[in-house]
């Protein structure tokens, strides 16, 4: 059982997420819609004692965006991975900067490379790319210059 089971139970009973699972020892994973993000994170921070936001990743699935949050609790030594689904045509989601200041830079990077807009961010400007760059390169529709050798086996076999 352990702390990950306890965390999973509390999250399930409070938010009823669509998919929630234990990944491995001390790691819980839940998938939520974007509107639930702030309540879940606030609950994690205030009730379950999550002090540290490790990372915010932005993923471009073909039918949606997903913002993956990795949160850590140092004191109770567990991690939570939150997959927040974002519709493709409206890439907005709440910013976590009110809760953790460390979210500031990660959200800027997600905006810069993937184009997801974080509502409530104090200074959402590009961070890695030049300020006047027009594209969001990490999106799947941004072309890759690929050589023959970098074409995957599946693609060679005719797949997508």
């Amino acid at each position: 059982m352990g702390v990950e089971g306890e965390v999973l139970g509390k999250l399930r009973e409070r938010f009823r997420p669509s998919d929630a699972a234990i990944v491995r020892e001390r790691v819980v994973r839940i998938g939520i819609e974007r509107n639930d993000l702030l309540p879940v994170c606030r609950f994690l921070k205030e009730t379950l004692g999550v002090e540290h936001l490790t990372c915010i990743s932005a993923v471009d699935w073909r039918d949606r965006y997903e913002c993956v949050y990795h949160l850590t609790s140092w004191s109770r030594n567990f991690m939570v991975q939150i997959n927040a689904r974002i519709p493709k045509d409206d890439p907005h989601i709440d910013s976590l900067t009110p809760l953790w200041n460390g979210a500031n830079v990660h959200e800027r990077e997600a905006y810069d490379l993937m184009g997801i807009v974080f509502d409530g961010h104090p200074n959402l400007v590009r961070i890695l790319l030049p300020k006047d760059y027009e594209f969001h390169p990490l999106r799947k529709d941004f072309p890759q210059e690929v050589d023959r050798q970098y074409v995957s086996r599946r693609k060679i076999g005719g797949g997508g």
Partner: protein
Amino acid sequence: MGEMWINMGPQHPMTHGLWNLRIKVDGETIVDAEPEIGYLHRGYEKIMEVREFQKNVVLTDRLCYVSSITWSHCYCLACEEIMGVEAPPRGQYLRVVTNELQRIASHLMWLAAYGPDLGLLTALLWALRERELFLDLIQLISGARMNQNYPRIGGVRNDMPPDFEKYCRKVIAHFRKKLRDHEQLFEQSKLFQMRTVGVGRISRAQAMDWGVTGPNLRATGARIDLRTLDPYDAYPDLTFEAVTRSEGDSYARYKVRMEEMKASCDLIEEALASMPEGPYRSKPPRRAEGEGFRRTEDSRGEAMFYVIGDGDDRPYRVKIRSPVYSSIFAAPLMMRGNKIADVVAIMGSIDVCVGEMDK
């Protein structure tokens, strides 16, 4: 004179890498600071989507080129999560040994950069002289001094040569003595302490809030080291205690890294003594589907890779979490209220490596 913005960089001897620090000064005192990064952005995450899983180790080596094995190790752990393989015990121990050797080499490079920042130019030569020994050891085991391409998904590339253990112990014994010399060089005169004690103070709560990890966090009094909290590979079997200090200033960060070098020496000796026999690598599958993440205690803090595979032989998405990325943006907190001349002391003590920050 009022308040004005000064640009330190991007071309600047202090910055140790290519990034820009804008500081707002009122006379000599710093009121605010704003780092500007991205000069070394190489598009890693996009490139890694078109290269096969194992070929990406060549790239992850070059993320932080000073501390390459630790980054590739983290990536291999994340890929092993998706693929469901686990390195055999000997492979795990080899990864730990090379990890710690690389950590000492990285800390020595930091020391070699920090001394000249403060005017102690002799520290550059001395620390690099010691680093040469560790680079020689790493070359002995992996074939290259930097960017070694040594960890593999499922283990390591090759076993250690037969005389490696002997040389390693010799180097560690020699290094312990030399580390005392380096400490004396820095600490015997009070001038170093005049420059670093009380400079760049950050509190534990602030550090945690801003996502600072690693030696920078341990210097504020938090006993947080991923090698004890969330151990991976052979770390659960080794005795290890995180090094902490409570002041949170530049001197504390310096001391934590010096003590960490000693702790790494102990770890290496213990790992070498209890190294099991057997294979050093297990064969991973070529294709992988799923998502996995793994974090390790890199030389600079908590490094994390989040890898998603969609059934193909290359990743769908790779996300790199760099500890320096968060620490640099906590630096303005450390700098407020200090003088311009303290910027060097503070930024040097954070240990910036621009490669991993800009990806």
